[in-house]
């Protein structure tokens, strides 16, 4: 079984309570070796708690946690074969960069000189060779972040844990660092569990995304599955701001369903839908807005915002207010314009 292998992780009916508050009611999850799994969800949904239980910094109230097939539920953090990159980096301010990176190796009983060599290799890995003698306070935010990654990686853990590793970097740097982390992970092949509340980040780095809500796994799947086949309104909304519209399934044939949204008829993958009322998640960029008497759903522009490469509209229709993005680049339609709303099938999904 793959959960026996080095780097595999398994949560078995894990529950975590803080006093009378239940942060995680009942969580089961399998992570394959070499996989990068993202825990995604809004603030306070229990991502960090889940990660900390895996690290050994919190003890589950109930259930078991296995790493590489071994039950580690009661094992303290310092004896688990995982290491963690903290949101604040948690670099020891009184140690040099090299001492920081060597710290874990020495804790494990490695000789100082040997640890020093390994630390230098670790710094090479993240492109910081030569900065070993500096104090963390003498590095930029991005460099500090890489030291934190190097410090965790030199221990060659079965699993690397990252808790919102990019949240203290500016937007430009984030994109670069997340690519670097993903590259490292693919190159060295370790298992990684990555916590973020930013869906774009999650889509960009993950093999698999686990979306959490109030301590419960709402949906787990590849980025594409989540984007194209959200199981619920919450997922649809969380992954790429979808509009959820009432619709009618007119008939199902093979894998396809004939759907009517406010009179506009479309063919969509059925995903187990049955004829009758249903709901459709429509991405903002799958909604088209055309001026004048073209057939479609009738509506009126409530507001429009020009954002350089695209225009955002709020459109008032009979089925509710819709959020649409037009990348066409034409002059924006002013508020009050009567429009016809249409749909591109690629960004639409029936949800249960």
């Amino acid at each position, binding site marked *: 079984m793959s959960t026996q292998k080095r780097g595999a992780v398994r949560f078995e009916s894990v529950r975590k309570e803080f006093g009378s508050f239940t942060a995680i009611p009942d969580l089961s999850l399998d992570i394959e070796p070499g996989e990068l799994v993202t825990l995604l969800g809004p*603030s306070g949904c229990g991502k960090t708690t889940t990660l900390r239980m895996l690290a050994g910094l919190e003890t589950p109230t109930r259930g078991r946690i296995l790493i590489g097939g071994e039950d580690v539920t009661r094992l303290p953090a310092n004896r688990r074969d995982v290491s963690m990159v903290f949101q604040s980096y948690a670099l020891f301010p009184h140690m040099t960069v090299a001492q920081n990176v060597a710290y874990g190796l020495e804790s494990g009983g490695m000789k100082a000189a040997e640890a020093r060599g390994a630390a230098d290799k670790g710094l090479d890995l993240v492109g910081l060779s030569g900065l070993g003698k500096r104090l963390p306070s003498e590095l930029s935010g991005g460099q500090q972040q890489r030291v934190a990654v190097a410090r965790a990686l030199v221990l060659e853990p079965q699993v690397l844990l990252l808790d919102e590793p990019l949240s203290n970097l500016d937007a430009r740097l984030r994109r670069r660092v997340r690519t670097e982390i993903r590259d490292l992970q693919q190159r060295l092949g370790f298992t990684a569990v990555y916590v973020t509340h930013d869906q774009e980040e999650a889509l960009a780095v993950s093999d698999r995304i686990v979306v959490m809500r109030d301590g419960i796994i709402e949906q787990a799947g590849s980025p594409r599955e989540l984007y194209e086949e959200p199981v619920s309104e919450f997922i649809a909304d969380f992954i790429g701001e979808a509009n959820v519209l009432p619709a009618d399934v007119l008939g199902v044939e093979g894998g396809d369903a004939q759907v009517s949204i406010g009179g506009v008829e479309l063919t969509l993958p059925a995903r187990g839908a049955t004829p009758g009322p249903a709901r459709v998640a429509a991405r903002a960029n799958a909604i088209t807005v055309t001026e004048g008497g073209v057939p479609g759903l009738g509506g009126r522009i409530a507001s429009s915002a020009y954002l350089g490469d695209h225009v955002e509209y709020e459109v008032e229709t009979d089925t509710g207010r819709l959020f649409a993005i037009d990348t066409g680049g034409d002059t924006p339609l002013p508020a009050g314009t009567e429009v016809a709303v249409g749909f591109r099938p690629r960004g639409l999904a029936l949800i249960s």
Partner: protein
Amino acid sequence: MFRDNRRLDLLFGLVLAGLLLVPWYRVRSGFFGFDWIADMAGKTDLWPGLLQPFLGRWQVAPVLVLLALTLFLRLARQPGRARGRVLILIGLAGLVWMVAEGLSIGMRGWNWGLLEAAFGEIEGQPAFGAGAVTAVLAFTLLIAFGFAERGALKGDAFILGAIALLVLLVATFVFYPILSMFTGAFQEFDGSFTAKGVLKNLPDPKIWSLSCLTGTGSCGVAWRTFFLAICTATGTTLLGLAFALVATRTRFPAKKGLRLLTVLPIITPPFVIGLALIMLLGRSGTLTQVIEGVTGLELGRWVYGLTGIWIAQMLSFTPIAFLVLIGVVEGVSPSMEEASQTMRAGRWRTFRKVSLPLMAPGLANSFLIGFIESMADFGNPLVLGGSGGVLSTEIFFAVVGAQHDPARAAVLATVLLCFTLSAFLAQRLWLSGRNYATLSGKGDGGRHAALPARVAWPVTIIVVAWGLFTLIIYTMILFGGFVKLWGLDHSLTLEHYARGFSIVWDNGIVWTGVAWNSFWTTMKIALIAAPLTAAVGLLTAWLIVRQSFPGKGAFEFALMMSFAIPGTVIGISYIMAFNLPPIQMTGTAMILIFCFVFRNMPVGVRGGVAAMAQIDGSLDEASLTLGANSARTMRRVILPLMRPAILAALVYSFVRAITSISAVIFLVSAKYNMATAYIVGLVENGEYGIAIAYSSVLILVMITVIGTFQLLVGERRLKRPEPAAKPQEMPA
């Protein structure tokens, strides 16, 4: 698994040494004198624990059996939950047994007639010595190790051990003495129980009378103390507020100088102010003579009594209120005041309707602190008390004076304790969570509104006047040591210093001055106590801030509560608890050291908590996930980052050990006399000159120590900017 056994092995090493090599019972001449090594063979009282049962002291046998059982478990059973459970039970049984036998069997056999009737005569036993203490420690650690094997706190034996030891220490050195004091109230001299003393003292009108309110006599000491505390608390809070306002919200030119004032109570032995007050306002005081000379009135001895004590306490404790209230006044968010001003409120309205209400909880806090300080003050009432004392001095005279009535002392101490604990509970339960001052302190710029003119002027005048008064008092202290006979003969002399601190060269230095003996004792004991205080305090702070364990709330609360116990109560309870077996320490240096460590722990704990709060908690966790255990985390990460806090704790516990008097005065002996107790003795003999000279020397020593420390810490800050592991704003 491997670790579980290794730490047990280490424990066995300790236990074996404790049972085989050192005397089980207390060595009368002092353990650290090591005379006992030579005498051991001859005297059975000096034999180690392993041999004691064979001398007919069967009460030691269960201890040996329990420890042997542990050894068996170590060899024959695997570590795990089952073994852990048995270890806990053994540890508990051992502790319970040792407490029970220690308290039941005294010097001359059974302590209680009931037991003697049941079991017949028994040979007495001396107090616990090194061997017995080792056994107590071993049982305590066994409980911790047992819990570790059961996986409590993730099986972290270091944390569990630290908690167990702290609980043991606090129980032994804070709660056991207090309990002994209560039981002492109900005991006759021979140890038999009786409620006679309590019944006689509890309703005593000398304690409870309220007849001063009706003008028919004087009030009881409890009410006098209470009224005094109310007055001192009110006065210091108002003055402290005035100082804080001037220091932060006016353009007063000497603000730095004002802040220096806050150092004074730290370096001033508590009775020195009273002493200076006598020199100024006493019967032959300078000011008294001036006034009498001008007006021809007879001022008399008015300063000896509550009024004098009140003035002395105002001088002593206003700086403390100032320190507390600076934080409060600065904590009021400027944006609130600015908001008020943009809503058409003038400065006066803003001050009255916004700033003051926001400061109210802080003012109440300062009031309660002043109340507790005044209640606990011993030095000033002792010097100025005259006929009408307060609770703390009455307690003292009840035990050392001619009346020698421990029951009365215990009753008075209980009354005092009730007052201070009520104030403490009010502070903790009612005030906590009501502090608006720092609600929106973070990151909002803006400037504090300046004081409205109608407040600023009177306040500044009061502050300047009081500041000058304080200055005069301190000048008198430094100056008084050089005057021949205060009030009578004002010619300058070095006589007092020569008598106190003369040194003669006679084939090496001979310390001939009368003060040297107590001076060096004080230094030695303070130097030993300081690192212990810092260690215990910081360890406690670390457990409170960083670890969570069941019962932590209660642990923290009990600890904080012990800070509200007045020194006099500690003193009296220590002599009641540690005068007879099982723990006998009176007359030794040890009792002084323990007293300092547990009395000054708050300094370490508070400093540690504050310092720890500035170290991002994820640093500890990072260390753990990098494979370091708690002990290594402590050594490599926490301690280096806390170095300034450690230094501060060291310095302040050192300084406080030198200045304290209230508890110490009960515990000193001819062999181990402390500077403060010695000075008070001088005052009682009317030798003011040398007393003042000695006090000035102490103050100078402490200024030097604190100044050096400030320099050291200050320079370190210059060299290395505070590193950047700042606790970031976490988006959850």
